[in-house]
């Protein structure tokens, strides 16, 4: 049957073509254009996440290496016994372990990031051969030595060491860069915050006390360098410990200073009056009459805004001093809706400040089209507008900088693992919002609020000029949509010293419960105490201080970062805590003896630090 013969030849020819194609393909991918770059390497390269430090190099977040308990199920000889031993050592449910042994096959994490003590015990059992199939695997973790202190700023990382919130999230790629192909360990960059841990500690303590004392929903205290826009302290209570973030209640993790929009109340008068003055509607000499309320007829409604008192004839200065609502409302009649709106936008209201913290709100500043007759005078007294605390303190930089609004900063600098400065954040002017004279006028008006007759009199400090404004806003009751009669936001803004502002402090107590709820009564004293505490750190002097100039010893502090190759500084007189940055130096080990302060050191100051140098310190 010749037909069948032809068919076999045809079939064989087709097969031949197929084989030829295959061989050509192999020639192509093996010889002509081989792709050799590995898409995957079985050995994971290790990334050591860079630390987060305060402005002086004190550690806020640092990499740790903890062991995780893993299991190779095929190698486990006695599942029952293994599960029992592990449950005893690791304090986890035996039946859970046994269940995963039976349900899963191959590799398994039993418990991740165990304590060094647990690790030691498990290691011993493994060495004794009691736990076949069980192994300890080192894993990188994150430790926050200051615990809750800067939790809202640093945020936290998840179990795989990836930033989940705060700077850890927004700067994840800087702290933990993509591993380099040829290196086993990739080191992340160091981020220095603008925060001063000492001031942060003071602010946090004050906020925590107020939080307890007034049973508040939330207490925020922000301290900013008035000349640079750098946050020196940034605290919000409730807070959480980022070391154990997973067990913290959700509400404690809310970063309120950026995420929470509220009506600021009377503190806002400093910005509304500054706007009116800049727009030419009012001058320092404008006069308004307060008979206890502001009243204006519109075709379809009569707008009435009550004042807390009958202040009679008022000027911008007395409006701020007494926090006169009707005066501020009448003053707002002198400017147009659109001008007023645009000026408030210039102050930064209704837009984000751009802090690298997740979830920043823009607040609520309605578009002029949707303003009613009531809106303009109401915004003038700080209601019908919602702001965030960072917007408020940022807007205040326009007052402390001769009218120039600054960009707020939380990052001071970024330093590479080799110690090279990658990025340094400097004062960043955004725009001129008001004239220098207007800024000066408002600051001076604010100073009168701290006079014995002013609303911020409880913030008066003898010998120190402070510009301040207090506020007590009614909160909108979320249930009724109307202003609540017993829920308030009490706050105080302080800029000091008035003649040459160095710092801005903004403190907010949200929904204080108790007989006292006025900003002037509960927030101003808190700010006063805080100011008293921090001015010595900043070197701000009261005129009443007995100044003793001393030219003796310089301040004791370790340079921000030391690295191999530089010389060892004089460490004598430093406390253990101040020595902390020493431990972050790669390739250098530190041995300490005793407690207290350094009394002697080897090698001596000025010695060149090399990889492998051992620094021995005696403390007393």
């Amino acid at each position, binding site marked *: 049957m010749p037909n069948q013969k032809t068919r076999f030849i045809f079939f064989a020819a087709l097969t031949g073509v197929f084989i030829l194609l295959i061989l050509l393909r192999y*020639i192509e991918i*093996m010889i002509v254009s081989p*792709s*050799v770059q590995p*898409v995957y390497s079985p050995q994971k390269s290790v990334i050591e996440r860079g630390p987060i430090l305060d402005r002086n190099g004190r550690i806020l977040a640092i990499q740790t290496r903890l062991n995780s308990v893993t299991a190779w199920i*095929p190698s486990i000889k006695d599942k029952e016994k293994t599960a029992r031993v592990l449950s005893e050592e690791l304090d986890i449910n035996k039946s859970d372990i046994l269940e995963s042994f039976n349900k899963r096959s191959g590799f398994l994490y039993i418990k991740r990031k165990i304590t060094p003590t647990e690790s030691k015990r498990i290691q011993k059992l493994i060495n004794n051969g009691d736990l076949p199939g069980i192994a300890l695997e080192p894993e990188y973790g994150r430790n926050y030595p200051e615990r809750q202190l800067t939790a809202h700023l640093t945020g936290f990382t998840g179990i795989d060491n990836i930033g989940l919130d705060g700077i850890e999230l927004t700067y994840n790629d800087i702290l933990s860069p993509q591993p380099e192909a040829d290196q086993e360990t990739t080191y992340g960059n160091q981020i220095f915050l603008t925060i001063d841990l000492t001031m942060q500690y003071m602010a946090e303590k004050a906020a925590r006390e107020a939080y307890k004392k007034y049973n508040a929903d939330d207490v925020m205290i922000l301290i900013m360098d008035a000349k640079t826009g750098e946050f020196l302290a940034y605290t919000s209570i409730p807070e959480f410990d980022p070391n154990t973030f997973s067990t913290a209640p959700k509400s404690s993790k809310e970063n309120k200073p950026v995420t929470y929009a509220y009506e600021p109340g009377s503190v806002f008068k400093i910005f509304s009056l500054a706007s009116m003055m800049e727009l030419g509607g009012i001058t320092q000499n404008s006069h308004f009459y307060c008979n206890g309320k502001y009243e204006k007829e519109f075709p379809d409604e009569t707008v009435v805004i009550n004042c807390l008192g009958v202040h009679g004839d008022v000027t911008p200065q007395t409006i701020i001093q007494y926090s006169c609502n009707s005066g501020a409302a009448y003053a707002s009649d002198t400017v147009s809706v659109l001008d007023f709106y645009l000026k408030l936008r210039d102050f930064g209201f209704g837009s984000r400040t751009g802090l690298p913290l997740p979830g920043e709100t823009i607040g609520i500043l309605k578009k002029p089209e949707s303003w009613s007759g009531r809106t303009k005078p109401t915004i003038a007294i700080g209601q019908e507008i919602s702001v965030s605390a960072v917007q408020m303190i940022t807007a205040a930089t326009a007052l402390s900088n001769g009218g120039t609004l600054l960009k707020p900063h939380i990052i001071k600098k970024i330093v590479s693992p080799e110690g090279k400065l990658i990025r340094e954040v400097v004062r960043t002017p955004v725009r001129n919002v008001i004239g220098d004279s207007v800024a000066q006028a408002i600051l001076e008006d604010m100073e009168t609020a701290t006079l014995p007759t002013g609303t911020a009199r409880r913030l008066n400090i003898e010998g120190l000029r402070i510009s301040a404004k207090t506020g007590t806003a009614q909160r909108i009751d979320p249930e009724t949509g109307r202003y609540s009669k017993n829920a308030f936001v009490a706050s105080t803004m302080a800029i000091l010293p008035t003649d040459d502002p160095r710092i801005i402090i903004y403190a907010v107590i949200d929904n204080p419960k108790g007989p006292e709820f006025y900003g002037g009564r509960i927030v101003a004293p808190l700010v006063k105490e805080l100011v008293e505490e921090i001015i010595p750190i900043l070197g701000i002097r009261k005129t009443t201080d007995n100044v003793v100039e001393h030219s003796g010893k310089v301040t004791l502090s370790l340079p921000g970062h030391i690295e191999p190759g530089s010389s060892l500084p004089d460490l004598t007189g430093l406390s253990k805590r101040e020595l902390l940055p020493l431990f972050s130096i790669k390739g250098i080990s530190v041995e300490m003896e005793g407690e207290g302060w350094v009394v002697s050191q080897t090698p001596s100051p000025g010695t060149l630090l090399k990889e492998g140098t051992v620094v021995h310190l005696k403390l007393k």
Partner: protein
Amino acid sequence: MMEYGFSAEKINKGSSDFVFLSLVVLLSGLGIASLFSASYYYGMVRFDNPSYFLTRQLVFMGTGFLLMFIVSKLPKGIFVKSIPLLLFVSLILMIATLIPGVGREVLGGKRWIIIGNRSFQPSELVKLSLILYLSHILSKKKDQKNDLVNGILPPFIVVGVFAALIYMQNDFSTAVFILFVALSIFFIAGIHLGYFAFIFTAVVPLALMLLFSKEHRVRRLIAFLDPGSDPSRAGFQVIAAKIALGSGGFWGKGLGLGTRKLGGLPEAHSDFIFAVLGEEAGFIGIAVIVVLFIIFAARGYSLSRKYYEKDYFAYYLMFGLTTSILYQALINIAVVSGLVPVTGIPLPFFSSGGSSILITFIMCGIILNFSRNVSSEDNRE
């Protein structure tokens, strides 16, 4: 045409084809060596035993050789007689895989059944049974072979039923492979080309429909067209295999010295063993293996040609068995190079896997059996 009896004097007459047997031994030896190199790492991490797969493979190969020897010595008549039983057993086993509790699901495919603590893949047995059945039916109905109702339809329906059952095990590629082998036997048997046109118009659209009905198949297809589009999943094997091959170059890194199998190349010991071979033995090694398979097939075909116009059952059978082994190898090799989409077809003599090895050796045993009888027949004449 001759009648095969079950008479004793026809057993042990003549000797099996030495060339073919040598090729089987050579390929098996190379297969074992490659498998050990490809699997020791996986065996070490997975089973705490670097020679886990080697030992297993040696046991299967030993059993395979024994089966091959027995089958090559059987009287020829037993093959035709066993067809109904084989088809019946295949059918029962295929249906059994679909019964929960008996069938075992591995990586999404329900292709295995469990006997004791061993698992068995019945679709391998189906290959053998169908080739035997088709060779028999087409040689018996040689005169009716272009009669649609009596000649073509019955075998085609049987093939269709098995292909459908294999498809239901979620093994699309084996179903297609069985159809392909069946069609090649139909083709060589001289079925009118018009029927092929008919079969293609009927089967191809259906196959395409079924192809696109499962996500993992579409994913594999996309991965085939553009491996980079999904490097973490379906395209991964293809890319990983290419890198392994590319790093082998012309001469290779040397046997046992490849590194991609250390986790970089999934399924290194089974379907992608050829990539390990490419990395370690280079293009030269690949070429040698391909040439060995070509010689193997050429010998198989040339042995079958001796039955041409004498015994069509033996001719079709040896053609079908050789084609089955050759094309499994070619498709597997083509998959590894990314020439055709990823299938689950193992490389005969090389890939780890029990059922596939046993059936391959039985197939070789049949070929050897008929090679021997050709010789004895020739001697008699």
